[in-house]
């Protein structure tokens, strides 16, 4: 059997799905609605986003949700009939997620 490499991408997808489900809804409420309502002071946000633990969580959240996106995006395109392009779609999707991961690292730890 040619061993499938899907387990690697699927585990990234799954981890991304878990963190997205647990963290993103509350974060959208906070940074999408509460922050623009100016209910959170700059100093508070600065304290939060420079905390080492928050930086690590932020990096993990960003990287994993990018790989989560890449996996779903790739498989959905195949599901709607683009199977002949499966390989290039997969390469472009995961490379995009990888680029996003690098950017997330520079933001989180910058």
């Amino acid at each position: 059997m040619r061993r499938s490499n899907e387990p690697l991408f699927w585990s990234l997808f799954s981890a991304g799905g878990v963190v997205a489900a647990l963290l993103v809804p509350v974060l959208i409420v906070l940074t999408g609605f509460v922050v623009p309502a100016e209910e959170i002071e700059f100093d508070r946000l600065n304290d939060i986003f420079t905390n080492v633990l928050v930086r690590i969580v932020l990096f993990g959240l960003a990287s994993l949700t990018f790989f989560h996106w890449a996996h779903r995006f790739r498989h959905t395109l195949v599901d709607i009939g683009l199977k002949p392009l499966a390989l290039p779609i997969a390469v472009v999707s995961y490379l995009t997620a990888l680029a996003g991961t690098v950017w997330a690292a520079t933001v989180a730890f910058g």
Partner: protein
Amino acid sequence: MTDATVTEQTVTLEVARYRPEQDERPTFQRVEVPYRPEWVVLDALNYLKDEVDGTLSYRWSCRMGICGSCGMMVNGVPKLTCAAFLRDYYPGPIRVEPLANFPVERDLVIVLDDFMGKLQAVKPWIIRDVERPLEEGEYRQTPAQRANFEQYSMCINCMLCYAACPVYETNEEFIGPAALALAARYNLDSRDQGNRLRNEVVWADDGIWDCTFVGECSTVCPKHVDPAGAIQQAKVESTIGWFQSLVMPFGGKSAKE
């Protein structure tokens, strides 16, 4: 029973017909059949064949939901026609088509060669490294060990799950829900030692990894086999195996062995 003086209620069937000797492509035949609340779609088809048009072809046998041969599309949803009551579709019309995602042999009869091949591919029988001699007795199993796979042994090969699966629709190479559930049935059996052989098919790209967990296979399953669950669990198991083989590239047996 029926009062002849009362105007009989009817329901319209739109039955897919394909007669290869005369039809270029499938067409629909509209037929009025008597409406009886206790009738199922299969009863209406039998009425149609007996009383209206004897040329209609379709498969059926037990009419009690265990033979798995009367699966068809009823208003676009895969159903055992012996379990699809007219009253749930009244006043109709009720559109009856052959199971989706398979070639049509004739009328409502599909070609199931692809499915049969896939069932065989997962080696659905108990595999032993060495068969135990007869005099040593049977392979014994606790109720808990049996409960582990029992749900997956309920499959009646009706193929509704294949008709409901868009992944199989767009990719015929996908081994598909019922075959993967059947693989789980043997992989989870404490008497079996064939995981490694079976998983060459199950853990492959066109095995579990084509599945994007639409989940309709489990929704339409008349026996609550839950192929989608079997596939998800196999993904978890395969992923654990993949990481184990990274750590221990030259060995590492599956948990059961």
